[in-house]
């Protein structure tokens, strides 16, 4: 196994072009596990840790451009205001040691349906900036996931950054695991209110072959909120709307039975998380409060 250590982004792209099967590695929290267990033995590892720009982020008017290797810890500490849903999701990743090394770029590269960042990216709205020696392009995150552990990257492409819409309203993320910390998702759900466009977006993790949006649920909710004048009226969402939204979120799932949970439970849990997170975010929106709707003092964002 050859260990390639490009000093710059251009060198990295050149190396990837020369060795299309090379596996990029940054924090190593996923790749190294695969290698240690001999499940994967690439001829080339492409080490991205010398490329400083991948660890940086820029905050623009509309979006945050998040370098592919920015560790989850930085997102939690520095970007909770702009990317509240992603920050909550980041806090559910592994242990502090893992959060110090793992990154959203890694989550996207692995494209596991259980990746914690995916639902938050789907709900917020994001584009993945990828590049090769041929040039660069932006892929809407919905189109990035193409199958179980498969993504839209061409063989010679690398993930450079993720452009995520800054929160214009409350966002939430919720994940079920059978342990109270450091647990892989049985299933996960994210929601983002976008008062600027008067839309609600969602993201579901670990309940289908790929991370998905519950589009029918979004359409239903957007229509119901518009028809009922909820965005202007500051009214509480009615239980029947919340229930229908939750049902449609569950219906968006295509889960499997495995050792982590049954398909039936995953559907059920997604419906509960959908109903609860809708309540939290909507009540936060009504209150005009912070962008997480997290009324819990020091809640998910501490520790």
């Amino acid at each position, binding site marked *: 196994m050859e260990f390639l250590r490009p000093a710059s982004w251009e060198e990295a792209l050149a190396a990837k072009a020369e060795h299309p099967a090379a596996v990029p590695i940054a924090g190593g929290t996923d790749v190294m596990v695969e290698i240690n267990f001999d499940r994967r033995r690439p001829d080339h590892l492409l080490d991205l840790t010398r490329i400083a720009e991948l660890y940086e982020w820029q905050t623009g008017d509309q979006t945050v451009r998040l370098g592919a290797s920015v560790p989850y810890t930085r997102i939690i500490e520095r970007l909770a205001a702009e990317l509240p849903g992603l920050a909550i999701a980041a806090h*559910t990743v592994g242990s502090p040691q893992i959060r110090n090394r793992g990154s959203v770029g890694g989550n996207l590269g692995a494209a596991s349906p259980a990746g914690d960042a995916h639902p938050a990216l789907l709900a917020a709205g994001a584009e993945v900036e990828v590049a090769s020696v041929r040039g660069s392009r932006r892929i809407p995150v919905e189109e990035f996931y193409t199958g179980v552990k498969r993504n839209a990257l061409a063989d010679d492409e690398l993930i450079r950054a993720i452009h995520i819409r800054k929160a214009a309203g409350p966002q939430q993320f*919720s994940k079920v695991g059978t*342990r*109270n910390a450091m647990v892989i998702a*049985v299933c996960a759900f994210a929601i983002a209110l976008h008062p600027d466009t008067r839309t609600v977006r969602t993201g579901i993790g670990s309940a289908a072959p790929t991370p998905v949006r519950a589009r029918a649920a979004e359409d239903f909710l957007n229509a119901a909120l518009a028809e009922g004048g909820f965005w202007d009226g500051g009214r509480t969402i009615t239980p029947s709307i919340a229930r229908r939204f939750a049902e449609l979120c569950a219906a968006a799932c295509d889960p499997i039975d495995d050792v982590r949970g049954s398909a039936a439970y995953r559907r059920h849990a997604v419906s509960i998380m959908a109903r609860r997170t809708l309540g939290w975010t909507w009540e936060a929106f009504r209150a005009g409060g912070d962008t997480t709707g997290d*009324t*819990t003092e020091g809640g*998910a964002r501490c520790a």
Partner: protein
Amino acid sequence: MGPGRTPTPTKPRQGAATRGTIGESTPRPDGILKATGEFAYSSDLWHEDMLWGCTLRSPYAHAEIRSIDVGEALAMPGVHTVMTYADLPAETHYGLEVRDQPVLAAGRVRYHGEAVAIVAADHPETARRAAARIKVEYAELPLVTDEATATAPGAPVLHPGRTDRHAAHAPHPNIVHRQPIKRGDVAAARARADVVVRRDYEVGMQDQAFLGPESGLAVPAEDGGVDLYIATQWLHVDRDQLAPVLGLPADKVRLTLSGVGGAFGAREDLSMQAHACLLALRTGRPVKIVYNRYESFFGHVHRHPAKLAYEHGATRDGRLLYVQCRIVLDGGAYASSSPAVVGNAASLSIGPYTVDNVDIEALALYSNNPPCGAMRGFGAVQACFAYEAQMDAVAAELGLDPVEFRQRNAMEQGAVMPTGQRVDSPAPVAELLRRVKARPMPRPGGSADVRELPGGLSNTSHGEGVVRGVGYAVGIKNVGFSEGFDDYSTARVRLEVLGGEPVALVHTAMAEVGQGGVTVHTQIARTELGVAQVVLHPADTQVGSAGSTSASRQTYMTGGAIKHTCEAVREEVFRRGRERFGADHPGWADAELLLAGGKVVTEAGEVIGDLAEILGGDAIDIEKEFRHRPTQPFHPETGQGFGHVQYSFCAHRAVVDVDTELGLVKVVELAAAQDVGKALNPLSVVGQIQGGTTQGLGLAVMEEIVVSDGARVRNPSFTDYLIPTILDTPSIPVEVLELADDHAPYGLRGVGEAPTLSSTPAVVAAIRAATGLRLGRVPVRPEHLTDT
């Protein structure tokens, strides 16, 4: 033997003037090293020129091996040898109780992960790749996976031609051992019962999940023998199984304990020991083997999963009339310690209660599931989950408070066990329950911090759906090896004066696996010899056996051996003193002298001799064995017999918050009360109780090895075999009672296992209280709480 055999309690004054004696909280000498990552474990061993061993394991749970081709593996550069069954030099099988386990598969594999071949190479990666190139042709065989498939007509017999001592009375060759216990008249009692509760229970397969994987280093010696540095629970039983396999006399197989990263029963059976020694002797080079986490899940036995059927009958006023139960344990492919687990499950099956009429049956199966054997609680855990659920169910039927109902039926000293054995030391069952119940309740839920809510950091609830529940349980565990086993330990103690300072060297083969022998043994020697400086010799097979670090027995047994030997050393000091200086002072004629600070002191406190003068340059060096009182086997039909050495009791109160919509559980508090007879190291006692309690919590809500889809292990990793994190571990307040058992050294009672029993049913009782669900299976999964 008999009661007179037990050493008389020591005069309390011996050791009174010395610091660091028994009863003082003493920090572990290895505590900081372990917390800072500097402690050397067996996986850290290193030797110049060493090779690395690797094991090829079966992908099938039951298959005939048609052929093995090692040619390609052997031809790889860096590979020194490849061994299969055909290369074994001597005995081909080993086992703790029954020698039924092949060192390497003998023409047939019986479980997923069974060792088929071993490789030694100059790099671990090379060894692993070579193992992958060994070509094994398997022909799959029909599976035995449960009682029905094990005993069906025409079922494949997993071990044909059994000659072990349980074979004759086992009702089927696929039943390892069966133990009935009958007392009184259950049919007559049933006719008198006002309330009858009959239910089925199930316990999943728990793993010990120690953090230091199986590892060790075998070094071939010039005399043709081998030195093995190893993390184990019992050096001598390893040696006694290894020597025949290696074709060596026992004295040429020398074992030294290496750093042990937890055990909990999983190191009672051999894992890589024989493989490393075989490869070392074959290559003439030191060989190291370290399992990774994945292999570790296949490298040791697990806790027996169990199916239990219980029927309890009681009178309207809350008296238990009878218990009928049947416990089916799945022992997996090899016997391991299944027979003893059956004995425990049967004899402890009704719990710490007085019941005159019992009809009990416990058995262990042979199957193609992973082999199961020792784990903390050893057969008593499975039973406790069921009988405590039954106690709650009967109390509910009677409209009685569950603690009150338990107290009405709680055993006391003098009670008679189902085996007919009279409990002849304190059994404060009702008092332990009273204490956990009397504790103030933790503050109500509704916390604003998600870490204190079910789901924790996963942010699933801000209070929605959360219901609090409270549950109680109490359990009974035996201490020491039972059923007539000749259980002993050995201690060598050397007392001398070095540089004017009296120094005691204590040498035992006790395996320190985290239980705290390293503090307690020093404390005992300080107490008995009145010296400040005590050095513990590394544990090895150059001294007599210490027995196993299991069955909550080491403080009792090796602690007892050190006490016993120190007493002999002390008497020898006095004998030499009397011989040389007896005429100088009338105090030498006193029957009871004391040793304190290197001086011989009379009972009145007068110093009459100096150790330096008595010993001069000589040392007193004595090795002695210590035995607990003898026990008897259980009768094969009636189960009657004085089977156990000692009983220990622990009670728990669990307070849980359940997210009833998502089926997630947060244990808020798990209060324990336990009688330990005498707390030699109170700090360590509390640690043991908290650790056992947490392991029981793990079984209650998350820990299970999932075996399915062709008897394959589905979750051999810490990603999917979950153990509690600190956010899953509640506050565990502990109350310690010290009611002496007069048969035991210092009156002590083994501590380590009892808290593992009652923790699980207490948590599940609390979840039942919160949800109203029956919950007959552990671990309780979100699916069970949400009917999905």
